[in-house]
């Protein structure tokens, strides 16, 4: 049996209390949300915080709130709920797709969206679609709150710009523009409990159903220390009329936009080849949706 090291445990009732406790711990404390990353790392002896601060009893952190032209997703919302709410499935299908392939049904019932972001694994499933849709996040500490683009949050594997005393309170997603569509595909050796070998999230916006591409985001995951843009693929797509040929060209460029590594899950060469395949598939699916959307 794997045992956990000793630690203290705090369960603040609201955000300001949580911020105070974290500030007082001066970097020796860690937030626990679902614990599916943190407890594994603690059991393996990789981290041993002196105190865990649970955000589980803070009201309002585990909900989805529709606002005027956006939604606010509380950081402590479990991944299973992202697959259950009709609003997410209908309006943000690529987030739904990513949530439904995360871990296993058992993991999804504990794992939170906030934990998936802050843990900053290069292969995490939710950041690629969130970045592709331009998500922003809210970080709060004792002194105040800041809002930043999710994309600017990550530095490298396990590294982000979060400060020791900050709490991720939630994610803001604007309503997708008219005639837009997105798709996320994760490639693994099996369908459940699998870390991505390669994953691609594509999001495109047209000016009208049979018009030109006015915006394109192609996010590649597991091929760099953090999720990256396929920059030349995006450039090629914008301003053009979508055709199969254009998609193929973009997919080919995408495989040149990444510099993956060899590891036990796949060689660099295989990963590049798969980036091309998945970029093509996600763009094709995104386009189909964009033509239909409103």
């Amino acid at each position, binding site marked *: *049996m*794997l*045992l*956990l*090291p*000793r*630690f*203290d*445990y705090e*369960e603040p009732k609201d955000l300001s209390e949580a911020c105070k406790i974290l500030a007082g711990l001066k970097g020796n404390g860690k937030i*626990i949300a*679902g*614990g*599916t990353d943190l*407890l*594994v790392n603690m*059991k*393996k002896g990789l981290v041993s915080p002196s105190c*865990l601060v*649970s955000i*589980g009893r803070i009201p309002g952190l585990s909900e989805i709130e529709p606002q005027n032209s956006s939604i606010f997703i509380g950081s402590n919302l479990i991944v*299973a709920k992202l697959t259950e709410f009709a609003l997410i499935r209908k309006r943000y299908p690529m987030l739904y797709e990513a949530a439904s392939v995360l*871990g*296993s*049904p*058992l*993991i999804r*019932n*504990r794992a939170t969206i906030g934990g998936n972001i802050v843990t900053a694994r290069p292969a995490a499933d939710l950041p690629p679609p969130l970045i592709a849709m331009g998500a922003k996040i809210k970080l709060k500490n004792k002194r105040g709150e800041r809002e930043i683009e999710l994309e600017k949050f990550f530095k490298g594997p396990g590294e982000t710009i979060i400060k020791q005393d900050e709490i991720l309170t939630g994610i803001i997603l604007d309503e997708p523009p008219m005639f837009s569509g997105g798709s996320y595909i994760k490639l693994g050796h099996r*369908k*459940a*409990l699998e870390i991505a070998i390669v994953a691609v999230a594509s999001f495109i916006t047209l000016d009208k159903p049979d018009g030109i591409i006015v915006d394109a985001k192609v996010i590649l995951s597991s091929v760099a220390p953090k999720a990256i843009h396929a920059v030349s693929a995006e450039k090629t797509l914008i301003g053009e009329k979508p055709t199969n040929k254009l998609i193929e060209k973009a997919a080919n460029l995408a495989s040149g936009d990444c510099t993956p590594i060899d590891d036990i899950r796949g060689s660099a060469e295989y990963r590049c080849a798969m980036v091309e395949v998945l970029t093509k598939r996600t763009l094709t699916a995104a386009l189909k949706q964009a033509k239909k959307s409103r």
Partner: protein
Amino acid sequence: MKRLINLIVNNKAYEIAVAPNRTLTQILREDLNLLGTKEGCGIGDCGACTVILNGRPVNSCLVLAVQANGCNIQTIEGVADGNNLHPIQEAFVEYGAIQCGFCTPGMVLSAKSLLEKNPKPTEMEIREAISGNLCRCTGYQKIVEAIQAASKKMKKK
């Protein structure tokens, strides 16, 4: 420092003093003597530790007992009605879906959660629902067949 927590396990209320670093699996097995819940990997991979926490199946090896304070928990011991097996348990026996039995409590609880939400699942939905529960002996075919049979049986009742 130990904390006092309240749990309802299989409809029975408990008040227990626990250290923060003990998992729900440990409390169920060591303090409540409910040995049906198993610990295999301890890190979320195998599902042997599955319990139903406030209506959702979870890996109890990755839940701190203090996090479960105030929660309602069902373990495999709470599935049968006295000496009468639950239809899912009956089907597991009937279809040879058990060999060593180590994965069985978790399999049964994952199957039970599925059938409560979705009484007539497709084969793919069944496979997806038990995808966090690993079995080293039986092979999944017989387990899937047992869950299909249980779904039919439960509909008739």
